């Protein structure tokens, strides 16, 4: 997550966020609009099921593996050991918070202490 330098300003951010609020309303209300019973074809339903996972992975993977658009070239990067720690914790105890705290416990000392 880089600096906020590329943002053209507060208004732009606010419009983007209000658009995201509309996206929430659209998705949560999708089948509440019509009174009629709408059924999704099976293939479409299956596609919809993997899309959220795909979107989350698509955003996350570059945040872990890339630096300025290039694959991480140095092992002195706190993100990889932190992601590994989070992964190991998940394998031990699935959840969101446990792996997050395990990852941060590795990330913060390396990043703040050693500047990785």
């Amino acid at each position, binding site marked *: *997550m*880089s*600096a*906020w330098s*590329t*943002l*053209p300003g507060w208004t732009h*951010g606010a*419009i*983007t*966020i*209000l*658009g*995201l*609020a509309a*996206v*929430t*309303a659209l*998705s*949560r*209300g*999708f*089948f*509440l609009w019509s*009174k009629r*019973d709408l059924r*999704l074809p099976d*293939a479409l*339903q*299956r*596609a*919809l*099921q*993997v899309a*959220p*996972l*795909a*979107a*989350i*992975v*698509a*955003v*996350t*993977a*570059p945040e*872990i*593996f890339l630096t300025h658009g290039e694959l991480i070239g140095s092992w002195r990067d*706190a993100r990889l050991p932190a992601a590994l720690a*989070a*992964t190991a914790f*998940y394998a031990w105890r699935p*959840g*969101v*918070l446990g*792996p*997050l705290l395990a990852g*941060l416990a590795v*990330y*913060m000392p390396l*990043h703040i202490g050693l500047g990785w």
Partner: protein
Amino acid sequence: MLAFGPGLAAWGLVTGVAMTQSGLGVGLSILMSLTVYAGSAQLASLPLLASGAPMWVIWASAFCVNLRFVIFSSQWRVHLGHLPRRRRLALGYLLADLNLVVFQKAWPDRAVHRTGQARYAAGGAAAVWSVWQVSSLAGILLSSFVPLSWGLGFAGTLSMLGIAYSLLNDRTAWVAAVVSAAAAVAAFALPLKLNILVAIAAAVAASLVMAKAGPAAERGA
């Protein structure tokens, strides 16, 4: 419902921290928390916002993250379909993942509408909304004192990692995740953060191919 309180509060806190620490100011973080009210979509939008991706790419990505709600909404329709449209849309907007989990525990029969269900759903929505907003606002305000140089924004990425792992239920999901990660990294040089949409499309295509090949492959195995 009470049993979910601590987990929900912790999750809200983390999302609050991740918003401010991604460089979104306190004001925009509060606006996002109060209006967007969808944790995973908020987290996924943060790196895109920070890198200056166009609005439509951010909205499209968030919609993909939110597609599960489209499926949920067809379930809510059974129970809320009798309400006037405005009320069912307003209530639907406030119904998060946790609401459906709790609701279906209380009313296990998914095909039948019963009186009292809309009121139950509204109560659940109010409870989840309050806990989420209080904890998220606490995260925003507390972490606004932490310097960005500490890199606490990486908490958002680590949370998404955990969410992604929890969605890896079967072989199709694994394939979709691997395809998506590879495509997002390989296509990173595309302008406008289009690598995200390319990756989602590639993963969905892969899962459709697997669904077609799946029955045949299982027969052969």
